[in-house]
């Protein structure tokens, strides 16, 4: 009996699919490839300047500094060529800088939010201004990066911050029933000191578990089913591979900053109440005068929209805008729709305020 050619082809195809599936799960995709130069470093923090691609005379004079969260790599902003916010903004003519906080070691376990916001950030800002030759600058903070930029903007209102962009910013913790993390970290159930006494820093694996456990079926099962279903689409496979590379590159969070985040913000909502005291001084949000754009992801389960809405009523800025967009916490900036929705909106908003 002769073998059925169609069946043989089917098995060859299945083998190829399995090979692709294994490759994507076991290898790292090349991410964060936009050309950049290290211009400043302090401890683990590194400030990069992206190589401009637009002639100097055509560039915006106000530089833009990107600040991402302290417990994830900022490579999500520059995921892969052709699908990178960084590449997009550099192409639009911005003098672009990225502050990469790096991975904290045991020796950084005492670092607090104020160390990031008032020790590292102002030094990086000084360098940005020195290199760009501009006295003013714009700053984009995403997730915990938005908390840091907000504290900085309130504490250093005269540093030359012209535009402040907050992406999925977890600033308001008053609606405790609407924030799953607030329930999990309630003092009745969660002892932050026991964890930090044991590990020094908050382990990246625990942070990663926390983020994934918010939607366990999607993150642990559906995500892989989606990959399997799209194995015939090389573009979708590469996109998944790049995102998976970023998601699995986990880093710890400095113990001091984690304690402050849980105790001062999640439990007592001190920032939004203007009660947060850093270095002996109260963080008063009314001192923020920069033009403000708050981007909210309507389907965000990590930072629900209720956490980012109230800031507009608290700041002293006259020029402020809330931009609500469908999508998730990461999807609004790294999803397939981002180049058609979020990025152009941010660019247009900033463009009008960067001359």
């Amino acid at each position, binding site marked *: 009996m002769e073998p059925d*050619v*169609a069946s043989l*082809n*089917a098995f060859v*195809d*299945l083998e190829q699919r399995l090979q692709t599936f294994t490759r994507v799960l076991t290898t790292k995709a090349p991410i964060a490839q936009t050309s950049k*130069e290290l211009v400043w470093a302090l*401890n683990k923090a590194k400030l990069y300047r992206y*190589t*401009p*691609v*637009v*002639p*100097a005379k*055509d560039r915006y004079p106000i*530089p833009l500094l990107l600040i991402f969260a302290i417990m994830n790599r900022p490579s999500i902003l520059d995921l892969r060529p052709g*699908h990178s916010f960084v*590449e*997009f903004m550099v*192409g*639009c*003519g911005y003098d672009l800088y990225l502050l990469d906080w790096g991975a904290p*070691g045991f*020796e950084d376990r005492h670092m607090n939010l104020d160390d990031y916001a008032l020790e590292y950030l102002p*030094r990086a800002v000084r*360098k940005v201004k*020195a*290199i*760009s*030759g501009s006295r003013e600058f714009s700053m984009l903070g995403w997730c915990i990066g938005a908390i840091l930029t907000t504290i900085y903007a309130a504490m250093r209102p005269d540093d030359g911050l012209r535009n402040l962009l907050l992406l999925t910013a977890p600033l308001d913790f008053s609606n405790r029933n609407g924030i799953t993390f607030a*329930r*999990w970290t*309630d003092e009745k*159930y*969660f*002892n932050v000191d*026991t964890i930090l006494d044991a590990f020094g820093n908050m382990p990246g694996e625990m942070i990663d578990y926390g983020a994934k*456990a*918010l*939607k*366990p079926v999607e993150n642990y*099962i*559906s995500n892989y*089913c989606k*990959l399997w279903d799209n194995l*015939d689409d090389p*573009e979708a496979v590469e*996109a*998944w591979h790049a995102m998976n590379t970023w998601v699995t590159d986990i880093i710890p969070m400095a113990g001091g900053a984690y304690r402050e985040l849980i105790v001062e913000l999640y439990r007592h909502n001190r920032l939004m109440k203007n009660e947060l005291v850093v270095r002996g001084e109260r963080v008063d949000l009314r001192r923020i005068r920069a033009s403000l754009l708050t981007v909210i992801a309507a389907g965000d389960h990590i930072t629900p929209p209720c956490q980012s809405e109230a800031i507009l009523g608290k700041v002293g800025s006259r020029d402020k805008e809330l931009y609500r967009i469908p999508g998730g*916490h*990461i999807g609004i900036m*790294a*999803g*397939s*729709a*981002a*180049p058609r929705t979020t990025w*152009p909106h941010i*660019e247009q908003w900033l*463009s009008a305020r960067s001359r």
Partner: protein
Amino acid sequence: MNDAEEKTSKPFDPLEPLRAMRDAYLDAMAKTMVEAVNSEAYAQATGAMLEGYLTASAPMRETLDKSMIQALQQLSLPSRQEVAALAERFTNVEMRLDDMDAKLDALREFMHPNGSASKSDASQRADAPATPVTKPGPGTTASANRSKARRRFVRRGAGPPKR
């Protein structure tokens, strides 16, 4: 099978017949799980598990730490705490250097108000040679360059899966 048939035929996927059923099941499961993880009971259970694990493992961790410190002492090697203290001192030195750099910049600016902040910074400045993606033509304006880049991005579409 001829070539045309081969190209149009769907590749063999053993999960295909079960896909609709699988998706429906996963959707239902996802809703149930989201409700479960949002409950007080889940917060209480995970908190208790974590506390239990950390409390139970604490004596072992302490013993391990003590014996490791003793072993390192015997080998004349610094302990983790000592290396961490050294790293903190390095960071302090880095900060002092950065402070000096800032003061030098301020001094330079005071002496040459219209000059660059620092020589090293000047070399990295905005007027540093750019690597143009597109060659600007004779009539090309700044905004035309920028909108060209915007269009290029909007055309490339598809991206990664949602997290």
